[in-house]
């Protein structure tokens, strides 16, 4: 059991930075599968995949957060259920699940980050390592994936 002031987060890496998101905002972790191209979508939308018979869109978090696009990387996908349906987010690797107490989390960090403040939840400290906590749900729903034609 987790106590009230301690929440569980899934910790993952994008580029050389470590991120975390509330564990329950992620439905499942998927092995990476190459997405199929879909036309007329924004740049960070890398295509669609088959998740047990459902067609699910994929967002490349590397592109979304403005990291260089490197192709040779071992990646995993975080599948999230959003109001607009499921969506998979590609991250570089998944680290662990951590319990972080509220006291270890800075809600309004005075730092500049690649993450837009609208879905930045805070910055947590874990063994001298800084973890950017983001609201994955919000990050994945704040923008429209379709390009206007």
């Amino acid at each position, binding site marked *: 059991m987790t106590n009230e002031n301690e929440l569980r987060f899934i910790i993952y890496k994008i580029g050389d930075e470590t991120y975390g998101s509330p564990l329950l905002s992620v439905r499942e972790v998927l092995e990476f599968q190459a997405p*199929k*191209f*879909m*036309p*007329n*979508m924004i740049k960070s939308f890398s295509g*669609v*995949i*088959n998740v047990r*018979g*459902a*067609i*699910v*869109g994929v967002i490349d978090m590397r592109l979304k957060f403005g990291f260089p696009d490197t192709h040779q990387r071992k990646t995993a996908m975080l599948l999230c259920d*959003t*109001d*607009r*349906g*499921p*969506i998979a987010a590609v991250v570089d690797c998944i680290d662990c699940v951590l319990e972080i107490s509220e006291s270890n989390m800075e809600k309004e960090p005075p730092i500049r980050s690649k993450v837009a403040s609208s879905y930045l939840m805070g910055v947590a400290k874990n063994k001298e390592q800084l973890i950017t906590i983001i609201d994955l749900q919000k990050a994945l729903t704040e923008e429209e*994936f*379709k390009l206007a*034609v």
Partner: protein
Amino acid sequence: MELDLELIVSFCDEASDLLNRWEQICLQIKKQPNSDVWQEMFRIAHNIKGGSRAVGLLEFGDYIHKIEDGITLLRDGKVKTSDAVISSLLKAHEILVDWITQAKTNPAYSPKIQTFLNQFDDIMNGKDSVILEEVKEFNNSQQPEVIQHESDENKGVNLSEKANVQLATSSNQKKNKSRGTHKTSISANETIRISAQKLDLLIQSIGELSIHQSIAWHTKNQTNAEQMKTFINSLQLGQKITKELYEKALSLRMQPLNSVFQRLERNIIDIAQTLQKEVVVSLDGGDVELDKTVIEKIIDPLTHIVRNAVDHGVEMPDVRKACGKPDQGQITISAHQDAFGVVLIIKDDGKGLIADKILKKAIEKKIVPENTQIPESEILNLIFLPGFSTADKITDVSGRGVGMDVVSKALYDLHGTVRIESVPHQGTSFIITLPTTVSIIDGMIVTLAGQNYVIPVGAVEEVINSNRYSTDSTGSMICLRDQVVPIYDLGQALKHNKHIDKSERRAMLICRTGKERIAFQVDRVLGQQQIVIRPLNENIDGVFGLLGGTILGNGEPGLIIDIPSLTEHYVGLNKRKKEAAA
């Protein structure tokens, strides 16, 4: 009293079944007066009343109680059946249907019905001859524009009476509008009534499947030949049952066409009354089943066709007499199943379509260029093109800016087709084909830049081998049977940024919109198969150039290309280019 929304919704579903029967009875009596049916209608009203009070819709209960009183008079023979009586019962039905639709989301909904109730009482008390006219108009309030029109004409006549009706009409208009939006949006909690037999068959299949699954599980690690055989056998049977299961599950969505037919009949009768035409409707094949989604989407196009049939097809009684036809027009709506799906035929014995007139109009409206030679059979189909309206004057019943192009578009969206056959002075038939379900289509699998896509077979006119035809030096045009057709690369159309080798001669899909053809070049055509369409979630739905998605045989997602939109897009582009050049 506490209102339980769940109870109310289930009451409303039940009531709408009963109300369907109510409408049926009204239409039946109209054709063939029969006093026995009043007993049934009384029972329906009584059931609905009981149900509504049980779930706490007290006002609704009071309303139907008053209607029930009227039906009692009819049942006991104290009031004679007349057109006014039937019209008012149909009106009562309309109010009830509207009410239960509203009550599902808003239990406190309470329409203004006092005017109607007063009229209803008057009619049931035998004053029908006096207010017959008024009720007729009232009944027509489901076509608000008709009323508006009529009362404009009759300005000054009986002003106070008209004002009364007008008032009620305006409140009805509002209701009808909101009802319209309700019908188009399919709520997430939509329910379907399913025959227990279908469900039993489904459960039986699932049972069988689980047996084979457990056999496979228990024999999976065995090495002897006998056991291996059992294992493979159960896998194969499992596969067969899975296929069956899919079909059975789809059949759960199938609904008989009866309800659609009934609505069309009602519409025809209402319009005929407004236009003072006499029409007999005959229905055939109401037991043919279609997917619920298809049924919901064809109601509007079909309504449009029958409205046209009554308004433009069937002549006024005196004209008919002069032509040697019976006074009463005949409209037949029939349905039957064939190898490709369901065929619906709407046939009238009216004045028919005149090909010359249509061609003249099409040239006038610049839909086709002058001096074109079009075979007669194709001329009739010109009315499906946008911007075409045959009516010499715009009437209130049909010709409200919604042309037949909307009908053909709606049917196209359902992967159906529509065709016209017409003989002058003998009548017109609309022949509509529909797939039984929208979730399975015939698809062509093509490769574009190394990725497999699906193209609905119906969207492609033909597939050609480009080697056999001459192209221009840049490869941007092809000469196809004396017609110059522009070539576009489908991969580029879908913004595939991979380099495409143009020197390679590839397969081309010839697609058409109106009179314009376009050749789409693809890398390879892999074959044709039945495609189960998977709905796309909101994140990825509605992308330009795509219709939906599917899972291909190799487990990869395959996107279904919206060929008509792309064709239209490029034809429009060409036109603008030409105009700019000129």
